[in-house]
């Protein structure tokens, strides 16, 4: 077993009496880990804790060997952290280069020549070399998101926190972004929060499902799919036993839940496993 780069134990955080994050324990290693969950599940709050933006009320956290509860540890962690927040803002009057350079300065990259080389490298890495001199206000939504990714990647962080980076992107942009995330996950730890089960299926070696502030599943995508094995079936009408069911393109209904006897079982998907995990309400750690 590899040494975890991120280790969280019993993290909790409440907002106005609501447990946004409730006794979450995680160990993240190199590669891309997907964080799935419905709206309000606590994903963003957990990500903000892991990105050192918000301290937890309780729990222990180690980021890349640093303890962010101490001033020095938090600073050290931030030096090795890349964060792409949900709805990242941009200084629209800046060029892509100027914005990423600005972020690099805030990451205390002080050598001008080396910093500029690094900014050019990350912009090249996300495919924006050609437009690095263009103002951000003139870039498309997908390009802006890549600028945000470049800003997160600057300085080659060991831990990358991506909060719903593919929201609002068209399918082509999303595919392009997946490529970038996959590349970013090579040699570093990436935690990817998303609503898109396809993102997880295509990118992640591991998936964590959260609901109501708690971890409901923590395992591989295959294991999440396996949870739905034998619980997905086809029927001509929506089956009353189904937790969820919908008519597919073939005209048949695809049902998820506890199948009736003799049902014609279908090959489950990650989404089926995810739905059943949320409905199961029991915490499962594989």
């Amino acid at each position: 077993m590899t040494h975890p780069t991120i280790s969280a134990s019993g993290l909790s955080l409440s907002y106005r009496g609501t447990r946004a994050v409730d006794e979450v324990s995680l160990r993240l290693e190199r590669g891309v880990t997907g964080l799935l969950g419905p709206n309000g599940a606590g994903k963003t709050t957990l990500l903000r804790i892991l990105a050192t933006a918000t301290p937890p009320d309780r729990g222990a956290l180690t980021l890349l060997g640093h303890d962010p509860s101490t001033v020095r540890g938090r600073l050290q962690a931030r030096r090795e952290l890349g964060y792409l927040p949900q709805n990242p803002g941009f200084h629209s009057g800046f060029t892509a280069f100027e914005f990423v350079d600005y972020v690099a300065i805030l990451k205390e990259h002080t050598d001008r020549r080396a910093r500029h080389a690094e900014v050019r490298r990350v912009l090249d890495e996300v495919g924006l070399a050609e437009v690095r001199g263009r103002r951000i206000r003139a870039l498309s939504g997908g390009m802006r998101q890549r600028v945000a990714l470049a800003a997160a990647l600057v300085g080659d962080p060991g831990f990358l926190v991506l909060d719903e980076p593919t929201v609002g992107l068209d399918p082509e942009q999303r595919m392009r972004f997946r490529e970038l995330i996959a590349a970013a996950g090579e040699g570093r730890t990436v935690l990817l929060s998303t609503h898109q089960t396809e993102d997880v299926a295509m990118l992640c070696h591991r998936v964590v499902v959260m609901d109501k502030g708690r971890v409901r599943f923590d395992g591989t995508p295959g294991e999440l799919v396996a949870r739905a094995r034998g619980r997905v079936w086809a029927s001509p009408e929506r089956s009353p036993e189904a937790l969820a069911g919908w008519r597919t393109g073939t005209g048949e209904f695809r049902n998820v839940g506890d199948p009736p006897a003799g049902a014609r079982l279908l090959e489950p998907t990650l989404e089926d496993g995810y739905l059943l995990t949320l409905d199961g309400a029991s915490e499962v750690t594989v």
Partner: protein
Amino acid sequence: MTVLDRPVQAPESAGAVRAVLALARVEARRLLLHPMVAIALAGYLLWPLWSGSWRDTHQVLQEVDRESQLGPLLVGLAGLLAANSAVLRSLRHGTEAHFGVLVMPPWRRTVAHALSVLPLTLVVAAAVAGMFAWEATRPGAVGHASGFELATGPLMVLFFGVLGVLLGRLVPSMFAGATAVVAILAVTFVFAVLPDGVRWLVPLVADEGAAPLPSDLVGRPARWHALYLVGLTVLAGAVAALASGGRTAAVRATALGALGVTVAGTVMQVTGPSAALVEARERATRDPASVQECLRRGTTTYCAFPEFVPWVDEWRVVVDGVRSLAGEPAASRGLVVRQRVNALDGPSGGGPSGIVEELPPGPRGEVTVSTVWGDEGRLGLAVSVARGMVVDDENHGVYCDARGVLMMWMAVNGAPGGRAAFARTQTSTLWSPLLEIRLRDRENAVVRALLERPAAEVARQVKASWAELVRPDASTDRVAALLGVTAPAETAADREWRCA
């Protein structure tokens, strides 16, 4: 384990300081290129060219240093808005969520924003120095400037910029900056007329009322005001850093130190003029001869405050020109041209009433020359000498007779540009030194008629009839007849004047 929610305070390290400087450099470039700053800078730098003031000569350097402060006020206010906008940028564009987890804590960003005003300050300082050097090397420049007065403009720019940063940290709205600009302008002009104890609290104290004073009589607490501005600037920067979480011992100590400097500067600048200065101003006003240097040129003695002695030879050209038009014995009798100022209320010229008091008339046998020189100064001296030749009385009465006509004709012909200036007084209400000789329409008409005749011929006739023309009973009709022109009839409006 519990994590405390407190601002990250990076250990003091060279890297952190270098990062602050790098950010300050980026922000400084953006500040200099900000449209408002660029426009204000362009306006400030181009104004002397556009207005033609770059051609002015005979500058009094103890005035020039003070006048250097108005342009930087404009640049400083633009800097305030631009710095405020830069500080609020991350809030405005929603980047705070991201920047908040980067290594540099917000308070260091604040420090970088405050430092980013320095290059703009240096640009203004260079402009002030350049403009001053230009004016100091123009022909006829006299006097002594104060380095502290010259520093006030750039310091004001720095203070306003840092104030913009502070406002951005205290009030998350662009309206605060705009409101501050309006308030600063209002306070600057309202406080200008308040007593010394209060008016020095605003950054710019223009003191534009009086004619230039000898530099040793100016007595402005420029040194303490500069210290006050430095203290205020550092205090604003330190409070901004504290407000954004920089509650380190160093920042607290800086804030306390700056507060001390500000208080010291405030106290020292509002103490008012010393007894020795008050006495010196009294002496220079009431008994200027006791502090002046006098030079004799022909039958004229020129007495000037020591700094203004270099102007004597230029005064002489005007004096000789006017005297050459007079008849005997006035043309060759002894005359004292004395420089006089009203220094009692200092450079503002405003006493408790705030009204600039006029200089009282000088004694007989003397004519007054002011501390202003140039086209208007020449005309003013020509008027004084003409009055001295004709009536030997500096009381500004209305002469409804030959003396009024004669004084005006001599002043107009004795000073370069006199004819054009007189023509302007006939068609415009703009002030001119020629208006110190107050004439009715009737006498003005005679002067106009005389100016249409050859000057040399009129001069010959003036000299020939001098004794009669300067008698109080020589009428306007008589002067017209003697000099070969026709006087119009007296109108009802003419009769309303009270004549001397």
